[in-house]
């Protein structure tokens, strides 16, 4: 089954059809999401207008974690099944995930100052999120650190897989330990504790961010495929000249 998806030509065929519609749909979700978040959703009973930061902060945090999971899974495919396309996918996901994790940290900081009274504290949730950002950075650095590309791909994949352990820590940090960060509002056993009028823009933004990242990843992978082709062509030309 994986061989079916791992064929670069088939990948291109499928994604060529998906790409334009993905971009349009994701932008629609984000535009409507932003409209509702900023203009057509109620203030919070405690936080007032500052709650609107949530509509960027929470989707970014979810995407940062979800993309990390995808990064780790495609790294497993690369290490175990040795699919070259899986490595291209991992290295395409990493910068986008890094972006979302830094966005989470920045928006969280901007939210923390007016609400908590501090930009940053070393509580378990904030620290584990920072560590997630470092795992992304480590992956990107390792991936580019070797003369032989295969070495970089392999060691970066190992790092990505080790980082999986951080994901449950991020998710449950607010339940396992006392933190300044509040516990989960949406994904919890007794249902979301967030008003529907606020859940709507949040859902739109999460879907929008998700589809937009998928679009970016596809563009990234395609660019890398073309790069590989160019490298191969140059190699061929050089060989011909030598002969």
């Amino acid at each position: 089954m994986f061989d079916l998806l791992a064929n670069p030509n088939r990948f291109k065929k499928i994604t060529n059809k998906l790409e334009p519609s993905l971009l349009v749909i994701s932008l629609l979700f984000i535009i409507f999401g932003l409209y509702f978040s900023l203009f057509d959703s109620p203030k919070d009973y405690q936080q007032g207008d500052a709650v609107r930061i949530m509509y960027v902060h929470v989707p970014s945090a979810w995407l940062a974690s979800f993309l990390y999971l995808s990064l780790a899974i495609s790294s497993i495919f690369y290490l175990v099944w040795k699919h070259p396309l899986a490595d291209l996918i991992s290295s395409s996901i990493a910068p986008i995930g890094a972006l979302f994790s830094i966005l989470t940290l920045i928006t969280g900081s901007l939210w923390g100052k007016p609400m908590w009274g501090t930009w940053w504290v070393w509580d378990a949730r904030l620290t584990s999120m920072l560590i997630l950002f470092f795992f992304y950075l480590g992956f990107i650095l390792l991936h580019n650190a070797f003369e032989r590309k295969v070495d970089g791909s392999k060691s970066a994949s190992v790092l990505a897989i080790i980082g999986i352990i951080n994901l449950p820590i991020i998710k449950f940090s607010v339940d396992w330990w006392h933190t300044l960060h509040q516990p989960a509002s949406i994904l919890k056993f007794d249902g979301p504790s967030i008003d529907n009028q606020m859940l709507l823009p949040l859902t739109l933004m999460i879907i929008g961010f998700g589809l937009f990242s998928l679009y970016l990843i596809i563009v990234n992978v395609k660019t890398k495929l073309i790069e590989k082709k160019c490298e191969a062509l140059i190699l061929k030309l050089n060989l011909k000249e030598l002969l």
Partner: protein
Amino acid sequence: MNPKYKRLLILFLILSILGVATKLVLMALEENIIYFYTPNELKKKYGNVKNVENKIRIGGLVLEDSVVISKNESIFEITDKKDNIKVFFKGQLPDLFREGQGIVAEGILKDNKLIANQVLAKHDENYMPPEVADALIKSGVWQGEKKK
């Protein structure tokens, strides 16, 4: 064995060992990971010790009717519904500070009172419009946080 499955098995083994190791480390470091103690936990940890020179953080709810704010000092009590601790604080209180609100205060313990140098507000995981909060409190479904 098929080399693919061998690699998968090795990965799985390494991950489980790492997982267990992480769990153990986190358990051992629990005291450093928790961001604050509740008054009750503090009492359990320090027993009858009344002065702690190292900085500690205490979290809980601001006890109702305990807040006295004068020109240069705020005095209030933090409660976890079992024990209370009196807090003295000279700085600017966060906007969300009010009776019944979750807060975290950092400072040194002196004669069983916290001389705080920082007070942070902790907000809860409930998000709703003010009208909904009012309606819920009115109908008695939810007690809510006390208004300012």
